[in-house]
């Protein structure tokens, strides 16, 4: 970083722009577990945490043992009775304090995300803001948790519901949004009187450690908020533990479908399992291309394509056009898209002029290279080859891949139907809206799909017919706000209730019905 600053300081523009931000820490962060209000060393082995932009080892993360996850669940279980008896107002006061401290440390936690994940600073700050919004919504629990009642269901008899917490919940976070995703769940869980054990991704766990520090400072009693780092042992420990009442998971479809969902079923746990995706962005002939293309850049290349809401297939639809008109429209969209993608500045996200960071690690880049080769082998036309890495500065290329675009992709090609999770776009053609809807509905995933159009009828038909949990109309990233559920369908979601907002509150509470009569 110092080397980078030094080199850039010789560029005259840099004198003016001063665009390289300081890293939030130097040296190695030795990550610990946070159990029962204490920072505890793990007995498990440690893995390196590597900054994907410069390949520097910036910390080590423990792979905690079965005993350690058991200890965390025991601490959470012990804290539960008195926490549930704490008044909702007193519980949310901890969240108000947490929100204040998160705002004070906003920039620090954002830079931590960029440093350990690789995303750009704008993206990290965006993630921080959306995480905080969940804390804000959860502070409304004294109202949001209320039940309802009806007098005189029969003469002299009244009936009402009360919503009660269940106990300990496990939260398993993914690597791609290390700050925000655990906050889709944890604030609602604790606000409703439950206790939590969070397992962050071992690839970028420091962000959740910062949040645990903040939870500690905010005054949550010991055992209410716990963090246990690790891998499969911790996940299995959560799934098998009889004191864990429910699991919130965000990750891949195979893990959600084959491990988390059946695992929770076996032990009778509640489950929210949000999984993989293959999101389509449809461009209609009347779309405002000047606004659509920048929106697509964010959708397809934001977070280096590593998000379940990322656009993956750009569908150019020719509804209402003659064949020559459609050819011309298709070429226009492809040219504009490839032109914009080729100009994206790729580099270290702490450089404020960088628009796309690296993939999380070298292994993920290698997977992308395999997918690109598969696309070529299956006959897709490579319009922009991101394998020729061009960075804004002299950084190791290990985890970097520039935006990659295939055109004339067929729906049965691997790159056109499976989740890739990287900065690779497949451009497809559809002749009309009906064929577009069929194409989307034939895909096994149903996380998010978007349409860009000026035609309300087309937009309404798209919204009505497409089987996808989150629908965007002239919005490329369909990320629900904290007061709406983060939905998902088909192979993108396993469970009943979703994270965030009112559905999260339902998930973290048990409805109890009381029917009363007084003699």
């Amino acid at each position, binding site marked *: 970083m110092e080397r980078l600053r030094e080199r850039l300081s010789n*560029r*005259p*523009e*840099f004198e*003016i*722009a*001063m*665009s390289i931000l300081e890293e939030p820490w130097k040296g190695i962060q030795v990550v610990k577990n946070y159990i029962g209000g204490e920072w505890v060393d793990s007995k498990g082995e440690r893995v390196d945490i590597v900054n994907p932009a410069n390949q520097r080892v910036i910390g080590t993360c423990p792979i905690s043992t079965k005993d350690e996850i058991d200890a965390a669940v025991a601490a959470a279980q012990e804290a539960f009775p008195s926490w549930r008896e704490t008044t909702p107002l007193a519980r949310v006061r901890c969240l108000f304090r947490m929100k204040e401290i998160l705002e004070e440390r*906003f920039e620090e936690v954002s830079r931590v995300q960029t440093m350990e994940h690789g995303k*750009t*600073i*704008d*993206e990290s*700050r*965006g*993630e921080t*803001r*959306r995480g905080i919004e969940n804390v804000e919504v959860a502070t409304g629990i004294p109202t949001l948790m209320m039940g309802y009642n009806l007098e005189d269901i029969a003469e002299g008899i009244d009936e009402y519901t009360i919503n009660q917490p269940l106990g300990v919940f496990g939260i398993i976070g993914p690597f791609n*949004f290390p700050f*925000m995703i655990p906050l889709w769940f944890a604030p609602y869980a604790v606000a409703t009187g439950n206790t939590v054990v969070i397992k962050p991704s071992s690839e970028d766990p420091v962000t959740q450690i910062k949040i645990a520090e903040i939870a500690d400072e905010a005054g949550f009693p010991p055992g209410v908020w716990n963090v246990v780092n690790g891998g499969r042992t911790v996940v299995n420990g959560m799934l098998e533990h009889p004191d864990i009442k429910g699991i919130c998971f965000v990750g891949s479809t195979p893990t959600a479908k084959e491990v988390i969902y059946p695992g929770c079923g076996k032990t009778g746990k509640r489950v929210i399992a949000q999984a993989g995706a293959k999101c389509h962005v449809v461009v209609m002939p009347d779309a405002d291309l000047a*606004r659509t293309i*920048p*929106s697509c*850049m*964010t959708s397809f*290349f*934001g*977070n280096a394509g590593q998000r379940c*809401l990322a656009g993956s297939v750009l569908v150019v639809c020719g509804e209402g056009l003659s064949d020559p008109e459609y050819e011309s429209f298709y070429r226009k969209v492809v040219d504009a898209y490839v032109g*914009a993608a080729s100009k*994206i*500045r790729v580099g270290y996200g702490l450089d*404020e*002029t*960088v*628009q*796309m960071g690296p993939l999380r690690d070298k292994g993920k880049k290698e997977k992308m290279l395999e997918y690109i080769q598969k696309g070529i082998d299956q006959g897709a036309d490579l319009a922009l080859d991101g394998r020729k890495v061009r960075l804004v500065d002299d950084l190791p290329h290990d985890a970097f891949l520039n935006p990659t675009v295939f055109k004339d992709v067929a729906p049965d090609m691997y790159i056109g139907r499976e989740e890739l999770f990287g900065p690779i776009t497949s451009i497809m053609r559809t002749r009309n809206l009906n064929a577009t809807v069929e194409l989307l509905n034939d895909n096994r995933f149903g996380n998010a799909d978007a349409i860009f159009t000026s035609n309300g009828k087309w937009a309404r038909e798209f919204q009505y017919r497409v089987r996808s949990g989150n629908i965007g109309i002239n*919005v490329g*990233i*369909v*990320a629900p706000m904290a007061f709406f559920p983060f939905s998902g369908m088909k192979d993108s979601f396993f469970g009943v209730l979703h994270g965030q907002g009112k559905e999260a509150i339902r998930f973290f509470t048990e409805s109890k019905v009381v029917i009363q009569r007084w003699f």
Partner: protein
Amino acid sequence: MVLTLNTASAVISFVTRSEEETAKFYEQLAAKYPKGTDAFLAFSKENRKNKVTVERAYYGVISDALEACFSFKEGLDPATYSVEAGLPDGATYADALTAAIEKERRIQKMYLESAKLSEGLMADVTRSFKVMARKREDRLAKLNALLLAA
């Protein structure tokens, strides 16, 4: 290659630094020209308030789902809009006011350009840029009045 500022973060850093530099400039003027001390200190204070207003607009609405990294199109050229706190040696009160007017015009243009570039971005940020540009009208009128009276 010209380094343009093409992300929300880079533009916000640049415009807030411009406000800070201008605040320092007016502090220098206040110390050097007793005739305009009150007005210059008020300008300086307002510059720091502007900085907070713009930062608040950005940090309040920044979202991973919006086009923070991609909406500034060709980008803002920092060389065109840079302002420095310094004042030439031996500058008279009238020279200082003329320099201030020139700086304010440049800042106004910078905000107007930023507002135009960020139209696809979070509306609150665009609006705050427009508000800052409008505020410069008032500032320029005051500086011109001081220059006339000088």
